[in-house]
């Protein structure tokens, strides 16, 4: 028994020592590689730090699109240090600190808190954001002109809310009451709620918002919303994306149709239709912006925030059959 403990102790110490030894072992290798850089500027390699807020379908797709774009253009000349804050906002500060101190060539910040931490960490290294809806609010910039005027640019996942509202009107012209359900913890959802409420109110709907704090009270809130309204609108909300099943199980039996802000939510929540953006495309666009900055020397301060390259009207055939809705030909099946 005592020997066992001693062995465990020794093994653990060795593990720690190995960790620290590897830390000391290879400084020469590093200095070997650095001088070769300036000789051949063509063969220069780029280090890119990716800071993603949380594991999530849409964010993962954006990160993948970003990596694919740069790998397509630069091949193995680009190296990624991909880190995930696992949902804890303050870890994104730890990650950005790591990136800045190791001198990456560009930081890609996926989601709002990641972008904010990146902005705080450096005003020199170029930063590209993605999956951020409203850059003016996220970065605390007063006169928002579409450009940040500093080392930051990126892509916005804002689906055109006026078109979303128009689509809702096209499908349900006779409805009176529209309920919007979203998570109170998500700044982007609140923004979408505000904007689409204005559009829908202008069209003559009476609109009411229903917020929940986490998945535990979603069911209660969704029940209330569905029983009080003719149509439900779901914005691009991460918490709804993870719990769309709950809404589907309440809305379908109650025969209340759903319009969703995004494809994944639409199919999971049993929604009728959506105006869809692809987070992969969004990430890919961000990757192309990174290429322009790294290789063509563009200044992020002068680059406009870009939006998803295309929007597609999509519908859910099964659900439309259930509700007996027929849609114009321009809608694609999900």
């Amino acid at each position, binding site marked *: 028994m005592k020997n066992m403990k*001693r062995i465990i102790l020794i093994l653990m110490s060795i593990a720690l020592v190995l960790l620290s030894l590897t830390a000391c072992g290879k400084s020469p290798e590093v200095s070997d590689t650095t001088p070769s850089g300036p000789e051949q500027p063509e063969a220069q390699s780029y280090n890119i730090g990716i800071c993603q807020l949380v594991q999530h379908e849409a964010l993962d797709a954006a990160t993948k699109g970003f990596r694919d774009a740069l790998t397509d253009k630069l091949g193995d000349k680009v190296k990624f240090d991909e880190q995930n804050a696992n949902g804890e906002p303050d870890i994104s500060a730890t990650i950005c600190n790591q990136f800045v101190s190791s001198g990456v060539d560009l930081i890609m910040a996926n989601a709002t808190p990641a972008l904010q931490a990146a902005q*705080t960490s450096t005003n020199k290294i170029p930063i590209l954001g993605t999956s951020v809806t409203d850059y003016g609010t996220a970065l605390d910039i007063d006169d928002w002109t579409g450009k940040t005027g500093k080392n930051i640019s990126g892509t916005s996942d804002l689906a055109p809310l006026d078109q979303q509202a128009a689509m809702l009107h096209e499908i349900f012209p006779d409805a009176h009451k529209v309920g919007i359900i979203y998570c109170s913890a998500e700044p982007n959802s609140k923004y979408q709620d505000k904007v689409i409420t204005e559009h829908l109110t202008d069209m003559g709907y009476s609109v009411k918002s229903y917020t929940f704090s986490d998945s535990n009270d979603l069911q209660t809130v969704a029940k209330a919303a569905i029983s009080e309204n003719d149509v439900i609108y779901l914005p691009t909300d991460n918490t709804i994306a993870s719990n769309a099943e709950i809404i589907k199980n309440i809305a379908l039996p109650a025969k209340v149709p759903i319009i969703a802000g995004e494809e994944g939510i639409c199919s999971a929540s049993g929604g009728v239709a959506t105006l869809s953006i692809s987070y992969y495309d969004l990430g890919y666009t961000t990757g192309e912006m990174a290429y322009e900055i790294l290789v063509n020397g563009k200044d992020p301060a002068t680059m406009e925030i870009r939006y998803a390259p295309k929007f597609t009207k999509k519908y859910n055939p099964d659900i439309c059959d259930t509700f007996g809705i027929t849609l114009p030909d321009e809608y694609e099946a999900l």
Partner: protein
Amino acid sequence: MELIAYFLSLKPLNLLSALPGNIVQGIIWGIMALGVFITFRLLNFADLTVDGTFAAGGAVTVVLILAGIPAPIALAIATIVGLLGGLVTGFLHTILGIPDILAGILTQISFWSINLLVLDGANRAVNVDKYHLIVSLRNISSSIVTMLVFAAVLVSILYWYFGTEQGSAIRATGNNPQMVKAQGINIDFMKVLALGLSNCLVAFSGGLMSQFQGFADIKMGQGAIVIGLAAVIIGEVIGDALIGKYMNFYIKLVFVVLGGVIYYFVIGLVMWLRMPTDLLKLFTASVVAIFLAIPYLKAKTNNSFVFANKGGAQKNA
């Protein structure tokens, strides 16, 4: 071969250069851990209010700074909000008789709504280019000095306070409430006082954190209690291993702050090792477990009973 290539790809200098940032973040959490230390260790009260008051500290600080109030005053007001949070938990527990964990949880979830109201949403940025902040990820070298001064001052104040009659009464309340009652001390008052003090520190730390990272987020307090507890325990264990029986109350407080620094160093280490990101928490937990286990196992092997046992076994043989 791949393993060697992996080890060669790690750059030790990067670990070192990231260290100052990790230290600042660690001290900020270490101050939060001081608050947790007061309730969990001194008062023996499992207070879960801190998840709420940490985020509240951040939210209030950011909103006030955005409203044009200087950062130090904003931070002071945030600290008072933390005090109120602690008092509410104390009220629920002592006057309404709600068990400690539940009382803390109730206050904590109320703060979710309050913080949403304060922030007018889920997230507000405070731009370091526009406001004069006390600490920031942008100026790590000055932040580190500021944080060291803050930590030293707070530890000294706490050391002094827990040596006064009132502070000693709080410690005694945690140790032996019956005895304290017999001395004619109002233990309910002591509990409320300690909860208020603890949550002051937590909100103060939340206010510093929001300035450091440049934003306040409704989720920034989630899991704060776990980090705080980890820091307290890491600090205690490591302090015990290094100083052992010479540990006094002052050094104990210093090691609680140090516990936070070590926790963030470990996270930095795991990131630097470029482990698969989905496993970040697993690796963090493992490395912390190794840190905690080594002094314990070492103490076991160095235990005088073990020597005595060995000697006896040899004699008998």
